[in-house]
């Protein structure tokens, strides 16, 4: 019990820290949204007069009143009530609504492909470690090469090949907007899978190598342990030795790595979403930062910090179950 209490207490402190940083960082950035808006209006050929600045300040509100302390108090209070304020880019739409629109896309695309990459990588790693020197083991350098290539480069090559030279996949978007719309119909889901396939492939391709290499090496190390030898000596079937004896122990480090990457799913992948014009959180964050939309940035950072913490908490607790040693106190 004490183990779990300690964990929860630790996460409460971490949460407070994350929330406070979230308050500070946007306030330390230079510039203000009205200036950016005015330079954009000018570039879009809209008349800008001195009165325009004043009107925009009134429309958007002049930001928090009082010093940082009162603003901080106000911020915490709003947070407890689930209010993240209004987005400036989409004024007066609430931040929660704007994030809510983008979040499902990111979770579906990045989430699924992260899970697929992890399962495939760990699975292949188990066999590569079991049969050292086999053809599967020789695959490891090939997959790590994909990871070593800068991600945006890999993505651009795939875009060039699969959407420009051969028009097998769409070049942009979350689904085919001309024939279907968001619903639970098979047509929409099919279209969404079709549109998400190529971006998902790039994520899987670029991250599978790490999982595979890590798992393979842990397998090799675990297989030389005495208990594996004992299990083999007992005459257990190779499958049982491989999975329940070797793999269960070897997967532990990968699992904590997986927890961290699960947390970052929500942050989306800014690069993936930029390259494929995918309507997720990564692209939203990009828009928010380039427009000085503090409220939206804070909202997105908050969702990211919360999900990283939550994923870690869950895995921490699970870890205690899988590996009883972590519960014991030194």
């Amino acid at each position, binding site marked *: 019990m004490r183990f779990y209490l300690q964990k929860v207490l630790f996460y409460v402190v971490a949460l407070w820290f994350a929330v406070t940083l979230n308050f500070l960082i946007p306030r330390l950035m230079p510039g203000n949204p009205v200036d950016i808006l005015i330079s954009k209006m000018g570039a879009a050929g809209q008349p800008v*007069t001195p009165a325009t600045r004043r009107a925009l300040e009134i429309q958007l509100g002049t930001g928090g009143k009082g010093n940082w302390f009162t603003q901080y108090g106000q911020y915490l209070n709003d947070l407890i009530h689930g209010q993240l304020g209004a987005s400036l880019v989409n004024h007066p739409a609430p931040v929660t609504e704007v994030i809510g629109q983008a979040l499902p896309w990111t979770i579906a695309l990045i989430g699924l492909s992260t899970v697929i990459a992890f399962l495939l990588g760990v699975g292949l790693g188990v066999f590569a470690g079991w049969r050292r020197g086999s053809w599967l083991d020789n695959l490891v350098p090939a997959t790590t090469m994909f990871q070593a290539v800068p991600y945006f480069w890999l993505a651009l090559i795939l875009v060039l090949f699969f959407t420009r030279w051969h028009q097998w996949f769409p070049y*942009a978007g979350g689904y085919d907007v001309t024939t279907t719309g968001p619903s639970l119909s098979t047509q929409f889901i099919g279209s969404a899978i*079709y549109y998400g396939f190529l971006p998902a492939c790039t994520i899987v391709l670029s991250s599978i190598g790490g999982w595979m290499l890590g798992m393979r090496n842990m397998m090799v190390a675990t297989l030389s342990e005495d208990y594996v030898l004992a299990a083999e000596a007992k005459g257990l079937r190779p499958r049982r030795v491989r999975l329940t004896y070797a793999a269960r122990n070897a997967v532990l480090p990968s699992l904590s790595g997986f927890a961290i990457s699960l947390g970052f799913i929500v942050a989306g992948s800014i690069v993936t979403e930029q390259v494929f014009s995918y309507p997720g959180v990564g692209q939203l964050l990009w828009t928010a930062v380039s427009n000085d939309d503090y409220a939206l940035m804070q909202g997105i950072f908050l969702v990211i910090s919360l999900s990283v913490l939550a994923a870690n908490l869950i895995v921490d607790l699970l870890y205690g179950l899988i590996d009883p040693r972590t519960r014991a106190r030194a």
Partner: protein
Amino acid sequence: MSLSNKRLLVRATALAAVAALALAGCSSKGSTGNNSSGGSTTITLFNGSVGNFTENFNPLLSTGAELQPSQGVIYETLYYYNMARAQKPVPVLATGYSWNSDGTQLTITTRQGAKWTDGQAFTAQDVAFTFTLFQNNEGLNTTGAKWTAKATDDHTVVLTFPSTSFTLEPQLLGNMAMVPEHIWSKISDPAKETNINPVGTGPYKLKSFSAQSYVLTRNTDYWGTGDQAPKIDNVRYISLANADAATSALESGQIDWMGSYLPTLKDIVKQHPTLSYVNTPDSLTSVFTCSNAAMGCKGPQTDPAVRQAILYAMDRAQLNTQAVAGFAGPGSMAMLVPSVNGENIVDQANASLPQSADVAKAKSLLEADGWTMGSGGYYTKGGQELDLTINVVTGWTDYDTDCTLLQGQLKAAGIKLSVNQVAQNAWSQAEVSGNFQLSLNSINPGASPSPYFIYNNYLSSTNTAKAGDNATTNVSRYSNAAVDAAIKDASATNDAAKQKADYGIIQAQIAKDMPYIPIYVNQALTQFNNSRATGWPTPDNLYAFPEPWKSWDNGIVLKAIRPAKS
């Protein structure tokens, strides 16, 4: 998770991947064209939107949160001002207007026979109501001016101003969307309204909306007939994240109208005969200088001779070819776009810019001002090297290229230039607060093509502030009593000849002082696909500013185009 379950999962994901591939095979056949069935025409438009759309059709806003077709396509103004060529305002929801002699009263005749899309008639009361709405909501009134509006009968509105207000004309007539009184009188805070069921008078109305795309459909009760009536059935708006995706969309024929800078555009158009483009340079790319030492600017650029030397040291032909693939138009010393405002440039000496570098002249200007060539190859004065820093936004590739080239060009004339690449936020803040030496930016036109707006915004000392305080629009801190007087004089009349004389005074002063050093008129490329619709603006017939992101002009183009014969 037990390991046997995990094995199952691996199998399940493999199955899902196979299913996805199978689906991919099916749907790739069905998703080619944009033409929907039933013989109706749908065109697809990309206006630069990125990411998800947030539903907002409030045409009174100016924050950019309003979806762009709210202004000009769904809602209309009284008049249309064409920024692409010299042209009189085109009547839209008004059929006539007149000023009294001292510019304090504007009488507008409103259109008869126009209807809101909910069936109610458009009247002068709606116009008076809209003007009053702007007046009562300080946040919506981007002019900052005061007026009272009154409908004197069903098709006449009289606006009364406390002082001479000729210069407000394009903003009032050409930049304010008219909204129906019977709907907006019930809205308590129009600045926070998202207006998801827009009722306007425009040629198109909202058909369907989703966060990834929305569709407008033809307003069959539109007031215009013949050439003035919309002829395309549906217009779809989409968002894309980058220029590569836009190029793909254009080449594969999935987009009918977009405006992106594509360096290889000429080749693309050559390869795809259904595509065409038009280039309408409209904003003057210039080196903005913090020019006025008396207002707190610091650095060698506060010396007019240095600014003059930079003007002559530039090789504009090289900048144009290398930064914007030769798509830029020639600028002028008068800070105006010659193709639109040529007749307002008084002295022909100011109507153009040197296209190649004149290093000898640049050097002689510096030497006459007391600069001497130092040992490092750069001029010095009073022990100080002629060393300048220019701010430019990282990632604005044409500007970044310009700065790199300028570094070499100015070096040849003995001027040292350091390039400071910064994020847009920091760049704009440096300009506004006057904490910069040079900054690469562009001079944008105002509410109408009239030079008054450019001169008033960028040169008037009422629109500037000391360095350290925020300047509204005149970031160079330029302050010249003769220019101020001429700007004031031009605003007090609507006699074009009198105004032109004032512009002449201003042009003579800035040719000498050069607070903004012009480079070229930056490209504005618009691409069209002619296979579904024709009648787009052409270089010979710029009936509207063709860029799809331009409010108001959008509606004019959508009315003019017609289905291509197939």
